[in-house]
């Protein structure tokens, strides 16, 4: 069995994790018209929330994951209220800069409390399965399954529920939606809560798949950005597809370039997409 299949499988798992923040980032960008650099740091927040519960009160990883969803969503909502809401009418770049400031604060609060050490969850050790020559971890399957399920739920929410439809209307044309009676601020609050929860949950997955440290989320911002741009800003299925492509290319790319250049691969993807379509792929017509 060529090792490349193993890299592709690992890439699919990475992509599955990446898809959650990528969808959050993409939808929030479309809704609020600025790239929120704090989204990838919400992964770190979620991972540490779960760590506290998992190590502190011996919560099972499932309970810890659910709590991470809730707490990270609440953190994202709080950040929006304090930092972004007073700036809604400013040019997008001011908000982008503020979001970098927020990311920096969150990351360093984590560092202040837990330090720079790499940590991991207390979960029962399980042996990787071997299927057709591939090494497949139980956690990897679990992560992939839950990630796909969550994405399907998110998509169903956007297409089927009143709030989801209102969200898409506001993303499309905020003024028109507001004129039609869509409560803009409530839609933004719901999207922020949901986006934060998606990213927080992904943080726990990332902690299970790799390890936990203060930079784990922030270091992914370029990959998240690449996935969102590849999928077309504002499209949930697009962001999922983009995340899978970025995940696979990053992992398979390790065969060609040293692993330390992983971030550079995401950057090259961004450049390639933007040079072909300077406004980004489909969905970015704003």
């Amino acid at each position, binding site marked *: 069995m060529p090792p490349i299949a193993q890299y592709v499988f690992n890439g699919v798992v990475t992509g599955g994790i990446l898809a959650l923040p990528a969808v959050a980032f993409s939808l929030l960008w479309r809704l609020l018209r600025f790239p929120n650099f704090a989204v990838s740091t919400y992964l770190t927040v979620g991972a540490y929330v779960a760590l506290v519960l998992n190590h502190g009160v011996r919560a099972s990883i499932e309970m810890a994951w659910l709590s991470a969803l809730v707490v990270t969503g609440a953190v994202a909502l709080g950040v929006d209220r304090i930092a972004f809401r007073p700036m809604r009418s400013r040019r*997008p770049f001011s908000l982008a800069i503020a979001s970098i*400031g927020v990311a920096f604060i969150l990351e360093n609060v984590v560092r202040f409390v837990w330090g720079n050490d790499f940590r991991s969850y207390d979960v029962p050790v399980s042996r990787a399965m071997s299927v057709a020559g591939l090494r497949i971890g139980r956690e990897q399957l679990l992560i992939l399954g839950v990630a796909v399920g969550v994405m399907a739920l998110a998509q169903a929410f956007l297409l089927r529920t009143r709030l989801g439809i209102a969200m898409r209307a506001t993303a499309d044309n905020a003024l028109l939606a507001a004129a039609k009676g869509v409560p803009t601020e409530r839609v933004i609050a719901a999207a922020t809560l949901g986006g934060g929860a998606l990213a927080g949950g992904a943080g726990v997955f990332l902690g299970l798949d790799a390890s936990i440290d203060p930079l784990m989320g922030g270091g992914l911002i370029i990959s998240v950005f690449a996935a969102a741009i590849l999928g077309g800003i504002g499209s949930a299925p697009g962001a999922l597809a983009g995340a899978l492509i970025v995940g696979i290319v990053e992992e398979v790319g390790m065969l060609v370039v040293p692993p330390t250049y992983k971030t550079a691969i995401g950057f090259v993807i961004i*450049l390639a997409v*933007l040079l072909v379509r*300077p406004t980004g792929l489909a969905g970015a017509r704003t």
Partner: protein
Amino acid sequence: MIAYLTAIATLVGVRALVTLGLNVQWGMAGLVNLGAVAFFAVGAYTSALLAVGGTPLLFAWPAAVGLAAAAGAGLAMVALRLREDYLAIVTLGFGEVLRLFLLNEAWLTRGANGVTAIPRPLHAQFTGHYDVFYLVLVLATVAVVYLALERVRRSPFGRLLRAIREDEIVAAVAGKPVFRCKVQAFALGAGVAGIAGILFAHYLAYVEPNMFLPQESLFVWLALILGGSGNNRGALLGSVVLLGLLEGSRFAKDLIPFLTGVRLAAAQQILVGVVLVVLMIRRPEGLLPEKPGAS
């Protein structure tokens, strides 16, 4: 204490130059650059590597400024076609990829070990009070760059940059070469950051990739926004206040016993983040707002 203050003042001078460079790009022309530290690094590494290789500083320095400016022009030609929010990630990514390059291409950059024993200019002539000499050199450079950029700001070119910043479509309709001016402004700012890099490298006599983390670009932004973007005095003031903030919080270590090194660094960075966010919300024009219609 004098030695400490001299060192701090030298580093303020270096930071002030990077901030002045960013002010050309963002303050005057409205061009987003989240990778300011990259051009600083290009200047530092080019000069350091050439000097260590035996090139006289008289040649190494112009080469370093030139390469930093060329890197700025190159990135600008690709990136300035993009929308502002995409430009943010492209410049941020450029800074990070450059750092990875410095870290990995050891054949050229000596990798994680960094470049050591960088020659210090006129060291033999000023033994004994070399740090004072170097401070004067840095401050003189800041003064020259400041005066030069003030001239640029008042020149027709500077006025055109402000016009582009406010509304580039109007400037284009008026027949101005908008794209060329943006590339020039970006290259000029990158060149100024390159000068700062040179002074930094030959002051410490040592550079390594982790001196050029992405967060350094954020510090430059904070200094610029704090002081007031668009005017060069603001860029200078912001650099001084920022370093006061960073150095001042260092003394907190003596006051609060449980602060370890990691915690102190984290607390400093939390402070930087909070000041940045509060400024963006409350006072985006900074301490010294740009005067309307100043030319």
